[in-house]
């Protein structure tokens, strides 16, 4: 007879595990910051620099970083109560129901896929610098190459991701510091850093955009099944600190750019290459290009596998087409979901490229991030996450933070200027799709009954 427990509940084995072992604290730090630290973030920083400039851009990064530190505490609480790899969608569903979970989180994930498209284009530009291939071919190589590796069931290990992240961190900080010293030598440091007061509204929009730079740090909670709650909690706040330092220094480096972006032959301006060119010439550009490609690859590999499993899970419930709910028995990868995600990624990359939706992709992602973070603050003050003894003042502070984040999202949209319409269309499309998926999820969960297959 199976065991019943009046005995102590078993604990998770801490020794060597199947596949990859328990990640170290440093590996988690690298994973948390590496997910957020994508090549597209330099473009986001450049946009913030264009909006407010100099130390104001650094201020926007700092304020957004402080918000994310508070948010890391919020996410820690959510993770402690519901320790699941499903992350955000599980938290929102537990507090508000399944439909709300899908509506709140699906647009965020869809816009992440849009960002992958933009990331692929940047990698394409980096490829174009290294080899004589058109940038869109480089983007395709990146997408298809990463997809093929995921199809084979290979996941970039924590150590490899840590090396790629550290490479990106130190090399971009290095060239940014070189740019700063060069500006100092030219006697321009004061003029490039001390820009005129941008106004409250512009600064708020810049903070909203800066939230985009931290997007993904909270995905560390999805490692809780393997790493444990305390490690994740520490790694989340540690990752935000790393990102604050990184973005603050790179923002100052971007302020020191003397290259005129309008003279760029590229489809869009790639600031990290411009700083590299200014700081060290051709070899430095090639080095930075290689480092950025490796960091993008390590980040996209994990994201694609995670998204394929979410797609598989949604399809298995009938929210998405049934044929996507297939696991490969050998590699345990969701092959059909991976194929569909590749097609989608190529399609979205083409849309961004053909319609030059570079700014809109970043603005829409920033807005979705702010809204998801607002939702996290809101549900933290509800059952099952609310502690009985939590003071009214803390609860009010949580709700105020949620409202503030919604305000930042609105600020980003209103200050998107010529990209306002495209940004709004992107948001309408993703939230509209999420609404339809939520309706299907509600419908399917009520009749999701299964009948066992007969033996043989």
């Amino acid at each position: 007879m199976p065991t019943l427990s009046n005995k102590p509940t078993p604990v998770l084995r801490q020794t060597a595990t199947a596949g990859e072992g328990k990640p170290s604290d440093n590996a988690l730090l690298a994973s948390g910051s590496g997910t957020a630290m994508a090549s597209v973030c330099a473009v986001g920083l450049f946009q913030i620099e264009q909006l407010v400039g100099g130390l104001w851009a650094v201020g926007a990064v700092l304020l957004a970083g402080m918000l994310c530190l508070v948010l890391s505490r919020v996410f820690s609480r959510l993770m402690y109560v519901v320790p699941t790899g499903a992350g955000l969608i599980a938290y929102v569903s537990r507090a508000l129901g399944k439909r709300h979970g899908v509506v709140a989180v699906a647009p965020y994930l869809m816009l992440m896929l849009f960002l992958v498209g933009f990331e692929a284009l940047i990698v394409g530009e980096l490829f174009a610098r290294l080899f004589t291939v058109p940038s869109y071919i480089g983007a395709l190589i990146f997408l298809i190459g990463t997809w093929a590796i995921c199809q084979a069931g290979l996941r970039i290990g924590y150590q490899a991701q840590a090396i790629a992240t550290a490479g990106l961190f130190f090399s971009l900080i290095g060239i940014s510091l070189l740019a700063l010293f060069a500006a100092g030598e030219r006697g321009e440091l004061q003029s490039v850093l001390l820009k005129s007061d941008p106004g409250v509204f512009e600064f708020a929009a810049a903070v909203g955009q800066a939230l985009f730079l931290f997007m993904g740090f909270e995905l560390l909670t999805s490692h809780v099944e393997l790493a444990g709650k305390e490690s994740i909690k520490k790694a989340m706040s540690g990752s935000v600190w790393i990102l604050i330092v990184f973005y603050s220094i790179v923002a100052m480096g971007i302020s020191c750019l003397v290259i005129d972006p309008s003279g760029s032959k590229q489809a869009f301006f790639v600031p990290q290459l411009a700083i590299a060119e200014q700081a060290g010439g051709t070899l430095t550009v090639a080095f930075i290009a290689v480092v950025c490609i490796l960091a993008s690859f390590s980040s996209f590999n994990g994201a694609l596998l995670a998204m394929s499993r979410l797609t598989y899970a949604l399809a298995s419930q009938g929210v998405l087409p049934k044929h996507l709910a297939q696991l490969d028995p050998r590699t345990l990868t969701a092959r059909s979901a991976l194929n569909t995600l590749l097609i989608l990624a190529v399609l979205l990359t083409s849309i961004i490229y053909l319609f030059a939706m570079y700014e809109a992709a970043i603005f829409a992602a920033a807005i979705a991030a702010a809204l998801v973070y607002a939702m996290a603050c809101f549900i933290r003050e509800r059952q099952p996450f609310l502690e009985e003894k939590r003071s009214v003042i803390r609860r009010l502070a949580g709700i105020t933070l949620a409202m503030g984040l919604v305000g930042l999202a609105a600020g980003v949209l209103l200050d998107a200027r010529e990209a306002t319409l495209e940004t709004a269309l992107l948001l309408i499309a993703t939230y509209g799709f999420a609404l339809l998926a939520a309706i299907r999820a509600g419908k399917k969960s009520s009749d999701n009954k299964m009948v066992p297959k007969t033996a043989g």
Partner: protein
Amino acid sequence: MTRLVDSLQNFVSTYHAKDDLVKAYDNWSCSIALIASDSDETVSLQIENGKVVDMEHLPEEVDLLITSDSGVLYDILEFRRDPNEPYMFGELTVQGPEEHFMRLDYIMSMLCPH
């Protein structure tokens, strides 16, 4: 015998009846504990080379810890509910290496196609 024990035994019987599935996982060994959070009832199973070899001894350490309300566990073990749904919506939590629960998920999908 409690309902959870009964459900687990029936589930294991259904799995063992699928020779091809058991054979496909003949290189898989894993210990699993199912914890009903509302009743504090715990059952466990030891899998060796794809076969469940022990459901009687509750080990001190396991490779996979699965926690949920007893109602959800009954629904899954009695094939009324796809485990992906309660997992994704936070009603069921899993602790342990991904490889183990991906295999478990695959077994579920083979026993009960969605």
